[in-house]
């Protein structure tokens, strides 16, 4: 893969990768660093990329794996398991969440890692269930289940605030 193809097929995904990385790392700077690092690694192995069928899905999956490794390394994976339940905002934090984007974003950020990424990959990035299953390394039925749970949880948290 030459530099032009690399730009057209991979660097064009930078914003998507950034949003996924931010969803996992919950930090803009860390997410940007992770995307840069992934792009660098991909360029180093650019010759092997031609063999991959679905490059966007492969790269999104690589991004997720890298972010999980980062969390593992930094021991910040406090909410990586699906067992962790949503915790209520503190009044101080709630006061800060003024705009719509922040409210929704904060609710999603409090979901378990799998649900959080499944709902973002679907509702923000508009990816097919098959692609999400590949990226998240799970079955399609598991994606459906996690997606439904995530949406219902968001609704549960959102509606009381709107009423």
């Amino acid at each position, binding site marked *: 893969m030459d*530099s032009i193809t*690399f*730009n057209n097929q991979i*660097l064009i995904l*930078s*914003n998507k*990768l*950034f*949003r996924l990385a*931010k969803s996992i790392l919950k930090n803009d700077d860390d997410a*940007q660093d992770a*995307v*840069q690092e992934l*792009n*660098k690694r991909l*360029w180093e192995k650019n010759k092997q990329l031609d063999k991959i069928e679905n490059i966007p899905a492969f790269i999104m999956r690589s991004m997720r794996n890298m972010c999980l490794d980062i969390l593992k390394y930094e021991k910040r994976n406090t909410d990586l398991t699906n067992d962790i339940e949503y915790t209520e905002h503190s009044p101080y934090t709630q006061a800060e969440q003024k705009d*719509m*984007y922040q*409210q*929704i*974003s904060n609710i999603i950020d409090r979901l378990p890692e799998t649900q959080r990424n499944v709902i*973002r990959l*679907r*509702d*923000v*990035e*508009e990816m*097919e269930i098959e692609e999400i299953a590949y990226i998240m390394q799970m079955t399609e039925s598991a994606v*459906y*289940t996690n*997606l*439904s749970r995530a*949406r*219902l949880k*968001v*609704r549960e948290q*959102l*509606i009381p605030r*709107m*009423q």
Partner: protein
Amino acid sequence: MTNYINSLLDKYFEGETTIPEERLLKDYFSSDEVKSEHEKYRPLFCGFIDETKAHMNPEKISFTNPKENKKEKNNKSNKQGKALSKRFIIYPAVAAAVILFFVLILPKESENSYVKIHGKKIKNTEYVEQYTHAKLKKVNVLLSGSLNSLENITKARRGVEMGIEAVGSIRETIDIIYENLPIKIIRNEENNDLSSLPHIGGSNSKRTNA
């Protein structure tokens, strides 16, 4: 329309909607035609739309042209490399060459060196030295003999030169005698032929008179 949106919302929360259906919901909730009963869902779908606007800092996507990055890196590394090459490449290479010369080449030369005497390869250094010494002595003797003969030649040359000088003085005395004679004699100087000279004495004079 309201019922259709309601059914879509039910499907959506069950995780059963397709992407086009979800886009339709987003379009609906981002429009001004949202029914009051649906207003509570507006932040959800508009929140997703807002999230799509989150993007990388363009300056951080400095990897946009890997070739340029590579060139920059190459230029930097070339400059540094040139400075470092003398220290870390040339000097060790020279040192390695010197070590190799002493370690590998010199011993080989000493092991493989030999002298040919009468067509035979001789590696015994002591024998070669003695042989060479004897030959040099012979050369010395021959040279001393030839020097003696040279001395003889110079001696002979000196004798010849002395003889030439003596001849010169004889001629001068003859010339003086001729000048002081009472009778002038024509002298054949070119041939130095004295046969034409008149005999001094009675017999010769008598012959001329007769």
